[in-house]
């Protein structure tokens, strides 16, 4: 053991003498672990919330019996089904208002609740007694408690003057939900003897057919394999994961270069260790142990950074998840121990993977081969060939995935393969470019400039690859974001053509508001609308009723349309569908769809397809009169109002006064636009932040690579100094060289970035969100990025170059006096 410790101490002594190298290694590992685990923390947090939401007493994970008309039904059916062998448990549900906040009230019957309802809140035995016996309990999530500014034990009053049973904290519960005993819920919701649905347990026994017990009243709804939320948000999380993975890979590039360099430098030491009596196995064991120790230390630091990153990004992530999908994710990070463990494990695995080549070399280390510098040119050429071959293989994979892949994952696969291929090809391209420069050079110094640059490639290639990837992703993402912004703004203007949007509490109020509005002189038009819900191909779909009015005809943005599309909408046998729906169901203009409606299926011809960005649900737009004919129960409570923008504030104030409407019921166009833009900005803020992190990591990689190279390059520079170049001039040449290599890399990153952008827009977005944006190139953006890349290169090379410029002549002389 003492021997092992001594070997470890000897190995570690290298880092003491080369702290910059150690810093590089640690920074690489820390940033890899930090970004990866940060993103994982975000995903885990979100998934946890979906689970909570889904698991609320059989949310979407349990088969259910519901009334065909979707309404509540008598609880007698519950007893009848139980007596017929059905393992059902009743749930009553409704919305309640507490002090202006709206919450979902769920009444459950704990005694018949199926055991397998899932990871729903668990009550202890004394809790259950308290839950069931008067005054009962209201289970509530901590977030809800905080939102309502209430504490445990409070008995808040509802808007209908009923009083909730005392609040009881239940951390596993989803936010926004109040759970009480079904008996209490029926009273609170005014649904005596009524239930909203029956959860079906999976105990097997003889059951009478449902039809025989309940007639046509009930139907069984099978559970989804994954919840709607999970399905909807998958793409969002995949996006995050992809960025996390990218950062991880970039970080590992750094680790790989640091470990590789350290290994090369420690070769003589390893040989000496072997010669002085350390067996190969012992040496390798200690090398691995050293790496694991470093990985653990860096992993811990990385986890802390990851936590900070996640905590910083979570509010934005939560906001965009809420805005885009209506998913409630608490803004406070709570992490499980598994997360910490997984972070450490990933750090160790990453370190081992990055050091694999070096470790294998150590394993095969011949004691006797002299520790002389090997012919770098041959080795480099071999490497370049191998890398180029690998790159071509990756391109082939990308092409194959593009050809065959259908899923979002395949889309990201195309992206990953393309980028890795490009990264691997980079050194060859650089070598080729520098060779061209060398051939074209007339002057000796210039020729040396290119040749020496070429020699540096192997040392810098990993950092340059990281830079290439980071820049390409930056170009790709910013192009996509900019494209989206532009398209989205135009689209928003078209969609929100009216000036005020009003949503009445009921139809009576809607009628009153309409007649009141029509009597006002400043109102140019009142456009009533309605919205019904139905199902198409197993997914929920909204049916939107549009009035036949110029406001819509002139502004509503149609992507494709049949001739006279708006005219054909009026009779009620034609409709528009959203782009998402058309892609999902593979429908185009001229096709027919059967919309399930209460009075039987409604056969509608598709005469137009419109963009509906940001809506996870499919949508069908039809004439509003036709909608109320086919969906008679549709409340016509929504209306759009056209007026002069100058009149908007006074009109809203008057409306609010007259009908007691608040900000949720009457909104002006500008506010909706502002909110929509905010949601999207937040979504892309996360992407942007991760993007910036990645670029930063690439910059650090470049810096550390240059620093480690700086010492090794003295023997190359000293002769030049000796033949009469000043240190300043040498430093300048070094700077120029780094800049030219970085510039070539950045130039290569631009086309790659545009390919990335195309992949994001044409593959990833379509698969993830169901919409396709026009592909635009923004030259100003590209130029700006180019400058950023060069600045990053300057910043990275500044320190080593300054050191060179200020180096004592004695240090340069030593190159000649000391045999290395």
């Amino acid at each position, binding site marked *: 053991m003492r021997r092992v410790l001594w070997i470890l101490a000897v190995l570690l002594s290298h880092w003491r003498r080369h702290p910059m190298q150690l810093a590089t290694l640690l920074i690489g590992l820390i940033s890899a672990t930090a970004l990866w685990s940060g993103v994982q923390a975000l995903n885990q947090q979100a998934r946890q919330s979906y689970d909570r939401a889904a698991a609320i007493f059989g949310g979407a994970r349990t088969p259910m019996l519901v009334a065909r008309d979707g309404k509540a039904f008598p609880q007698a059916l519950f007893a009848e089904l139980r007596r017929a062998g059905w393992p059902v448990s009743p749930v009553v549900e409704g919305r309640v208002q507490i002090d202006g906040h709206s919450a979902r009230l769920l009444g459950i019957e704990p*005694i018949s609740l199926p055991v397998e309802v899932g990871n729903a809140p668990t009550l*202890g035995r004394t809790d259950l007694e308290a839950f069931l016996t008067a005054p009962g309990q209201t289970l509530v999530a901590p977030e809800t408690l905080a939102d309502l500014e209430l504490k445990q034990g409070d008995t808040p009053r509802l808007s209908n003057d009923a009083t909730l049973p005392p609040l009881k904290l239940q951390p596993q519960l989803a936010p926004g939900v109040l759970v009480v*005993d*079904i008996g209490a819920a029926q009273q609170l919701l005014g649904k005596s003897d009524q239930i909203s649905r029956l959860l079906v347990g999976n105990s097997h026994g003889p059951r009478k057919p449902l039809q025989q017990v309940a007639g046509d009243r009930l139907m069984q709804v099978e559970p989804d394999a994954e919840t709607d939320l999970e399905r909807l948000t998958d793409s969002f999380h995949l996006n995050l994961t992809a960025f996390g993975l990218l950062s991880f890979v970039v970080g590992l590039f750094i680790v790989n270069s640091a470990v590789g360099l350290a290994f090369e430098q420690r070769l003589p030491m390893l040989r000496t260790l072997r010669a002085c009596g350390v067996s190969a196995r012992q040496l390798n064991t200690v090398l691995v142990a050293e790496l694991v120790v470093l990985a653990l230390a860096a992993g811990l630091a990385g986890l802390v950074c990851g936590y900070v990153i996640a905590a910083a990004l979570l509010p934005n992530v939560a906001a965009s998840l809420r805005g885009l999908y209506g998913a409630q994710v608490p803004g406070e990070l709570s992490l499980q121990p598994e997360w910490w463990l997984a972070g450490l494990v990933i750090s160790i695995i990453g370190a081992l993977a990055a050091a694999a080549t070096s470790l294998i070399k150590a394993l095969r280390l011949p004691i006797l081969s002299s520790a002389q510098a090997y012919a770098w040119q041959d080795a480099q050429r071999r490497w370049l060939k191998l890398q180029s071959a690998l790159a071509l293989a990756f391109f082939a994979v990308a092409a194959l995935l593009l050809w065959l892949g259908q899923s979002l994952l395949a889309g990201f696969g195309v992206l990953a393969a393309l980028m890795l291929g490009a990264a691997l090809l980079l050194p060859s391209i650089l070598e080729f470019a520098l060779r061209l420069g060398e051939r074209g050079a007339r002057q000796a110094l210039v020729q040396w400039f290119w040749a020496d640059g070429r020699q540096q490639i192997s040392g810098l290639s990993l950092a340059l690859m990281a830079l290439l990837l980071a820049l390409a992703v930056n170009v790709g993402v910013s192009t996509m974001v900019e494209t989206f912004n532009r398209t989205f703004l135009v689209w928003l203007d078209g969609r929100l053509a009216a000036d005020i949007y009003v949503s009445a509490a009921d139809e009576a109020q809607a009628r009153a508001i309409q007649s009141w509005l029509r009597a006002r002189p400043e109102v140019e038009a009142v456009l009533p609308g309605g919205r019904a819900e139905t199902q198409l191909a197993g997914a929920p779909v909204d049916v939107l009723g549009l009035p036949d009015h110029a406001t819509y005809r002139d502004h509503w943005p149609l992507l494709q349309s049949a001739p006279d599309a708006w005219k054909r909408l009026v009779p009620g046998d034609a409709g528009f569908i959203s782009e998402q729906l058309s892609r999902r169901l593979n429908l185009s203009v001229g096709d027919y769809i059967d919309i399930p409606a209460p009075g039987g299926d409604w056969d509608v011809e598709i005469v137009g397809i419109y963009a509906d960005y940001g809506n996870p649900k499919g949508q069908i737009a039809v004439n509003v009169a036709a909608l109320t004919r086919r969906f008679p129960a549709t409340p016509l409570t929504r209306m759009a109002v056209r007026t002069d923008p100058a009149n908007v504030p006074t009109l809203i104030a008057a409306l609010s006064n007259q009908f007691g409407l608040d900000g949720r019921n009457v909104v002006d166009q500008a506010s909706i636009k502002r909110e929509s833009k905010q949601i999207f900005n937040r979504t892309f803020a996360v992407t942007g932040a991760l993007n910036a992190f990645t670029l930063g990591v690439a910059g650090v990689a470049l810096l550390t690579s240059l620093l480690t190279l700086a010492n090794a390059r003295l023997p190359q520079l000293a002769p030049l100094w000796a033949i009469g170049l000043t240190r300043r001039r040498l430093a300048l040449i070094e700077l120029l060289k780094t800049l030219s290599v970085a510039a070539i890399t950045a130039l290569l990153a631009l086309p790659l970035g545009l390919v990335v952008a195309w992949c994001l827009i044409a593959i990833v977005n379509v698969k993830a969100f169901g919409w396709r944006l026009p592909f635009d190139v923004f030259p100003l953006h590209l130029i700006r990025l180019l400058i950023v890349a060069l600045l990053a290169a300057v910043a990275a090379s500044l320190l080593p170059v300054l050191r060179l410029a200020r180096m004592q002549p004695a240090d340069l002389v030593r190159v000649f006096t000391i045999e290395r």
Partner: protein
Amino acid sequence: MSASRTIITRRAFAGGAALLGLMRSARAQGFAGLSEDADGFAQVLPGKDFVFPADHGPHPDFRIEWWYVTANLTDVAGNAYGLQWTLFRQAARPGPQGEGFANQQLWMAHAAATRADSHRTAEKFARGGVGQAGVVDKPFQAWIDDWQMAGSDRTDDASLAPIEIAASASNFAYALSLEADRPVVLQGDHGYSRKSEHGQASYYYSQPFYRARGHLSFDDHSVEVSGSAWLDREWSSQPLASDQSGWDWFALHFASGEKLMLYRMRQRSGNYTSGTWIGADGRARPLGPDGIVMTPTQTVEIGSHKLPVSWRVDIPALSIGLATTPLNPRSWMATSVPYWEGPISFTGSHQGVGYLELTGY
């Protein structure tokens, strides 16, 4: 007085293993709960006039009540079987009955089927007020989900016959028709059954003369069976004294047609023993605490429970001396309130079959 039973319902609530202990008395050995105060509930007093069919129905003002059927059966090959069908009612609080889910009655049911090499059990729980479980006196019906004990228009109020009982679980099921031609038998002092020297008592009547016929299946293997069955009806608000830990109870069908019910309440200072001798003609003769000697002769260990499954029973006044043997010594009811209940046979001065129940071990 078949046993039990504080209704200590145990229920995995929402996927957990949480227990539903509706009474403060919910303990692992929950029978002790029967000795709690009866505050607010109706009291058991001597001199009650039993009225049928009304008394076949529930008595919600009392805290606990049960409908308890056991049957000793054989198939054509002579193999012995036993089965149990039990519905328990417990009121979580006294007072007027709540409507719908606000009802305070809680229901629990046990079903079991026993043969020499196997003992299967199942239990169910339900809240009262919504029709998932309950009892109606006329035409008689007691049910919880799809388990039931149901009479018809033909059912006679005095004998509570004929009726059908049925229950099914994942690995056993049964359906029996029960018939009887003698009226129910009032236990103790005209239906007032003492449980200790301190006044603890219950209302208790039985129908020990059921002739049973039907089928019984273990897994999916069904057999035709016939034999004798015994119904116990008992309700009370406080049947156990505070120092009583459980009881040993016998219901015996003599081959000669007589019936014998015996129980021994185990308490700290000397056990309280009681019983009823029922002649083949249906006439009942209460047996006082002094004339009965019950001695365990053999115990089995099931988990941490030591259970006296074989007994020596002597009633000198009736010249009865019996040795009882269980059909399956491992007739353990692994329900939320666990106890031992299984078919037995006896030899000695007389021979026959019956049921033994051991609680509080």
